[in-house]
């Protein structure tokens, strides 16, 4: 079963990873994206994520459909957290189950790259001496 969700609650990685497992698969690749404390030497205190929820869910569904058309994979689960996140807390989990691991690794890498480019979610970095909304460098088409 595929799934794509937004939540303001902490994400349990194992639960996401096990939800995608079907009997015909042999490997699940799971990305655990979490809040980095130091970016280019500057210290982050915490992050705030905001989503355009209705559009974000549509874009996540499109990504899953495109990944399944391109790679030999069975199921995909994506959960992205919004709201305030502390250092080290998980912001996004992507799990890809496949009969064989190589396709799962490739699809997971493609999915996070595309999610960062197209899914309408924004992060605000809050530093000791200020804050800023981060603008992505990739262009949606």
């Amino acid at each position: 079963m595929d799934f794509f969700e937004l939540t303001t609650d902490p994400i349990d990685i194992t639960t996401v990873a096990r939800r995608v497992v079907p009997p015909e698969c042999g490997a699940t690749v799971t990305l655990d994206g979490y809040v980095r404390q130091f970016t280019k030497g500057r210290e982050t205190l915490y992050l705030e994520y905001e989503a355009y929820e209705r559009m974000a869910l549509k874009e996540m569904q499109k990504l899953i459909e495109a990944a399944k058309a391109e790679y030999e994979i069975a199921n995909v689960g994506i959960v992205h957290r919004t709201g305030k996140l502390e250092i080290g807390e998980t912001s996004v989990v992507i799990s890809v189950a496949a009969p064989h691991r190589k396709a799962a690794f490739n699809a997971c890498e493609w999915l996070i790259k595309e999610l960062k480019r197209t899914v309408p979610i924004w992060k605000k970095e809050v530093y000791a001496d200020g804050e800023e909304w981060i603008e992505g460098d990739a262009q949606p088409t």
Partner: protein
Amino acid sequence: MRIQVLFFGATADIAGKRRIAVEMATKTTAKDVFEKLITEHPQLASHKLHTSLNQQYATGDEILSDGDELAIFTAVSGG
């Protein structure tokens, strides 16, 4: 006709709100709405902006209809 405009992140901070309704003439495009909003909030012009129409990425050239939902935002930065 009435267009719903949504702002997120940096654009919400500049607009000072997350949602507004604007009255526009028929055959208006998203770019026309942009121009009106940039007049009201000049700081918007200092960002590279993207737009969506009814939750789909849009170019800005689409002709709008009454009740459409337009969103204006900076390049996404989730993950």
